[in-house]
């Protein structure tokens, strides 16, 4: 836990800020008690840093007013959706103000005829998905945190998820943003139309900016017609490479599954016995495939997928016959994260992404890096788009964490060599900022820094994130 020792001058400044905010926002929206600050000090990375003030805005104007004050006094600002991020984005590393945007959770409009919805940032992704489904529509981005993470957070990190191969990521569904800039001014980017190319694409510059450029207060998303039906298939393999080859073959056969998930041996052994689906000892890799569309094309695609898996020596292919069976298959996938804690109590979760043809090499490298079996590594993820979640598990013993961190570093180096990226969907935050210069060269980094300074000359927006400490 980072606790801030402040000088008296800083304390006085803080007191001024609190008073000013209380005056303009009212006491309901300004929390400064230690109990509240503690509740907004963390995110899904388990890191903690105590904010000085928690602001709970209800409107764009609340956000704007707060930013004006923060900018005047140069107080750090950290925007927070549900605080479920996996790269530290919502942790107020340098104290200051945390914006709890959960209160801005209205779906402002759903226009089925326009294929457009406008929401406030605090809307939970699943809630939006459910609401648009009532109109026969579909908001495809589906991070595994969809049931509790917010659209605002998804946009800030450019979240991906299991539907990425077929449907793309959050970025591909954002049409327009209302953004409060660090000086408190409000801009609108993009347009609430399915297409627009007027001027520079500020919308996409802000998507994935991890709260370092501005705060989204309204988000307009694109919707598509909801696929009629989803079917699920699980294929069990005794060799990891067979599963990877089968995934390749599926795509080679012109099938783009809605999801194409992979689990390696360690992941499987972690979930074995969790019920749902029987996992025999000889199962060493698993593919989990969702196909969506109309009844006809699903039937066709499933048979293609099934024969592709068999061709690559699948031990068994199981097509879910009922929604219960489908649920059971997915329960296997969903139970990985919790189940991994049965292997070891600590986890470093990386979401690297490599070109699909390099996945085998990546996994071999990971094996080699851990050839002494000092720690446990479980790999699973969205194999269709090369996005592998490498989970480094280690015990509560001296030296383990150092070993784990060293291995993570070496994995990152390999990922870059393979033409991959250090983060496919979780964002950089502070957890991965130390690896940024492996991927982003000094020139590109300096341009990003320039953009940051341009929008946020005082550096109040989410300081300590995205950029390596050297930048």
């Amino acid at each position: 836990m980072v606790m801030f020792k402040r000088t008296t001058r800083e304390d006085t400044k803080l007191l001024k800020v609190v008073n000013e905010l209380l005056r303009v926002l009212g006491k309901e929206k300004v929390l400064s008690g230690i109990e509240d600050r503690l509740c907004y000090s963390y995110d899904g990375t388990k890191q903690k840093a105590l904010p000085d003030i928690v602001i709970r805005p209800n409107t764009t104007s609340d956000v704007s007013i707060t930013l004006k004050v923060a900018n005047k006094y140069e107080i750090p600002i950290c925007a927070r959706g549900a605080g479920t991020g996996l790269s530290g984005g919502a942790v107020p590393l340098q104290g200051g103000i945390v914006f709890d945007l959960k209160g801005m959770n209205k779906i402002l409009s759903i226009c089925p005829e326009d294929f457009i919805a406008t929401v406030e940032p605090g809307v939970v992704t699943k809630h939006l998905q459910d609401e648009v489904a009532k109109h026969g529509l579909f908001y495809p981005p589906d991070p595994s945190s969809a049931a509790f993470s917010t659209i605002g957070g998804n946009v800030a990190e450019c979240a991906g998820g299991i539907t990425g191969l077929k449907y793309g990521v959050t970025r591909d569904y954002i049409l327009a943003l209302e953004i409060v800039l660090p000086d408190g001014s409000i801009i609108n980017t993009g347009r609430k139309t399915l297409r627009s190319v007027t001027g520079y694409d500020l919308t996409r510059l802000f998507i994935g900016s991890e709260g370092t450029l501005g705060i989204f207060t309204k988000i307009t998303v694109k919707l598509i017609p909801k696929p009629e039906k989803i079917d699920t298939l699980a294929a069990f393999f005794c060799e990891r490479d067979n599963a990877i080859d089968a995934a390749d073959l599926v795509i080679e056969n012109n099938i783009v599954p809605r999801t194409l998930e992979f689990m390696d041996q360690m992941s499987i052994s972690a979930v074995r016995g969790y019920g749902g689906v029987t996992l025999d000892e000889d199962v060493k890799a698993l593919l989990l495939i969702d196909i969506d569309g109309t009844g006809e094309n699903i039937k066709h695609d499933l048979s293609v997928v099934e024969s592709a898996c068999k061709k690559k020596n699948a031990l068994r292919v199981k097509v879910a016959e009922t929604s219960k069976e489908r649920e059971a298959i997915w329960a296997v996938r969903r139970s990985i994260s919790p189940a991994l804690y049965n292997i070891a109590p600590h986890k470093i979760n990386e979401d690297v992404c490599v070109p699909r043809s390099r996945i085998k090499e990546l996994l071999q490298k990971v094996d080699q890096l851990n050839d002494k079996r000092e720690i446990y590594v479980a790999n699973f993820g969205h194999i269709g788009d090369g996005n592998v979640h490498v989970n480094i598990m280690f015990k509560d013993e001296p030296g383990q964490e150092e070993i784990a961190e060293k291995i993570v570093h070496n994995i990152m180096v390999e990922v870059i060599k393979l033409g991959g990226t250090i983060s496919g969907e979780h964002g950089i935050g502070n957890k991965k900022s130390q690896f940024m210069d492996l991927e982003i060269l000094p020139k590109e980094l300096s341009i990003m820094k320039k953009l940051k300074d341009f929008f946020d000359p005082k550096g109040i927006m989410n300081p300590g994130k995205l950029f390596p400490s050297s930048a």
Partner: protein
Amino acid sequence: MSNDWKNEVSKCSKCGKCHTVCPVFLETHDESAVARGRISLAEALKDKQIGYTEKLRDYVYSCKKCMRCRKVCPSDVDYEKIISALLRGVAENMGIPLLPKIIFRYILPRRILFDTLLKVSSKIQRFIPMKKRGQMRHLPLLFMGKRWIPTLAGKTALQKFRKTRKVENPRMRVGLFTGCLINYIYVDIAEAVVDVLNKMGIEVVIPQRQLCCGTPSSTMGDVKSSKRLAEENRKVFESLELDAIVSACATCTKSIKNDYMHILGPSWKNMSDKIYDISEFIDKFIGDMPGVKPIGEKVTYHDPCHLLWVRDISEEPRNILKKSSRFVDMDMADACCGGGGIFTIIHYDLTLKMLERKVDSIQRSGADTVATNCPGCVMQIADGLAGRNSNIKTTHSIQILQEALKNGETKK
């Protein structure tokens, strides 16, 4: 118990999944209202970053203890241990608050609840070991009315079944743990349990010396009282040679089956294994019920938190209702009705919101009757429906079965 909770605290990965189910968080969106937030407060207490403050107490009390979060937690954090420790810490460090002001403000204007509470209050003392009167202050809410309200007229369940109804060659002998609400208010639920089981050839014993399960005191962090109650109840039930113990109260079942494992330790395991919710018991030991003729009414079912989220029981009561009525499911059947102990008093506004939503669901379902498996929910929902002058009846699922059995007999 001791320091177990500290390990649980460090298990929390702060993933945020508890957001999805916490009925309080879904209303307030306050991070301090959800397990993850309270765990971070527990962590800060552990590290001595904060002490016991009024605000902390409010945040601790804002938990409904429905245990949904425990059920969905990917890291398998035993939140119950943590919240219990927090409640205990609050009680030990700050004392247990007297709440007359709150009662005046929130309970008095609410007649049905008020009457009910007072009726309970007037009687409940008998369930508490009264040797040391000083202990009584630990149950402020329930005892508050004692001085003003005369005892409830009529027989309590215990009085009514002082003598066990004999069954010829019983296939089983089971004990009924009535719980306070059924004993004092919903005596007919106890009657229905006895009726139904007797008809199935099962003898029902209602031990006369059974006491309150201890939930009210543990809710206030009063560990000592809960422990004493548990020990008394152990003596009572262990002395009888019963094939099983059933209860028609979801909270009591949770308490004596699950919580007593922490309070009394592993030696309770044998008894704990024999404790069943009434619907669970029927499903497991009776199954087919010839002689049941479904009643004509449309009945829907509300899942009590403590049955669904702690015990994972949802199909069993529905099966009973499907056999004995025209069953219709309601949307959001598993949403909390808002009832439950101290929370109802401190967060009356939220309680009402949850209740209104629940009543909306019930009305949307088109049912004539809403059944549930917890007298606490019966009380809360009946209050909500009465508030809307609805004709929909509130009852326990076992009472529907009782009617269906009667229906079968008359048709013969």
